[in-house]
């Protein structure tokens, strides 16, 4: 009368998979948190220029985005236009846009705010200069010409 009876049938027991959902959920939550959905729908084409001297932008929450490029939809014309947030904008809307973002921010944070200028390669410098002038007037002096990292030639 042994207490520890040998199990009958020598097949290997099935692997317990009951913790599999937990593991998968853990991964799932990681990606859910890490995911940032594209917050503004692109209405202009921005084929970025390439540069070797690019630096990483620190925090996405500390960025103003300005997109410049030819509209994706031909019905909006073919000349380069500015996009702020989700909509087309004119040059004189840049200042109110930045002020409205600043008003939601902590005053200490404003000096760290950087403008991420995503402009298409075909945009003319006249437009970029006008935007730069607007940014200077609203005292948003940190600017980043968003560019893709090019491979070093040397």
């Amino acid at each position, binding site marked *: 009368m042994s207490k520890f009876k040998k199990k009958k049938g020598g097949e290997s027991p099935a692997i317990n*998979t*009951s913790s*599999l*959902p937990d593991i*998968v*959920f853990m*991964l*799932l939550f990681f*990606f*859910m948190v*890490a*995911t*940032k*959905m*594209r917050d503004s729908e692109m209405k202009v084409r921005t084929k970025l*220029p390439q*540069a*070797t*001297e*690019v*630096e*990483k*932008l620190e925090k*996405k929450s500390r*960025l103003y985005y300005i997109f*410049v490029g030819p509209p994706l939809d031909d019905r909006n014309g073919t000349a380069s236009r500015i996009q702020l947030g989700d909509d087309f904008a004119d040059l004189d809307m840049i200042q109110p846009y930045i002020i409205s973002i600043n008003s939601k921010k902590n005053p200490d944070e404003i000096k760290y705010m*950087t403008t*991420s*200028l995503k*402009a*298409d*390669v*075909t*945009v*003319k*410098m*006249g437009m*970029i*200069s006008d935007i*730069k002038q607007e*940014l*200077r*007037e609203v*005292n948003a*002096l*940190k*600017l*980043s*010409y*968003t*560019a*893709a*990292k090019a491979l070093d030639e040397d």
Partner: protein
Amino acid sequence: MARSGRGIPEINAGSMADIAFLLLVFFLVTTTMDIPTGLQVTLPPITDVPPPDTKQRKRNVLEVLVNANDQLLVEGELMRIEKLKDKTIQHLTNEGKDPNLAVSSTDAIVSLKNDRGTSYDMYVRVYNELSAAYSEVRDEYSIRKFGVPLDKLRSEDQAKEVTDKYPKKLSEAEPVNVGGN
């Protein structure tokens, strides 16, 4: 009545993993973890006070001009963009040797002027070459002096010495409209 007295049967959780995998794959695909990168510049603030009229000696200023046809003119000479970096480095490290280039590295100024019709692509490329020239001379100096490139320097003082030796005096003029739009 084989199963009587057993209470509610257990819910089969076997498909839970499948559902979770499905969601997982969705988020895997939609996740973009690329950090935006760009050329960082600091714009000059607008002041009512006109800038001090520094009579820069012409030799201290490297004039870089880009016209509406994306042609590069350096010190009045047409130049290919591949040569711009070397020319800038030559200017910055001249230390008075060449009478047409800067007297010293601290006096050296690069003046970038472009047309309103210049393409953004060309502008970024030119700007990139100029930045590359600055970072190269700074790194070179830093390695010569401290043995490591600028971004690997441990102390603030050393980094400051390098950046003071080669200050980034890159002035940008308001774009002119010469070649039409």
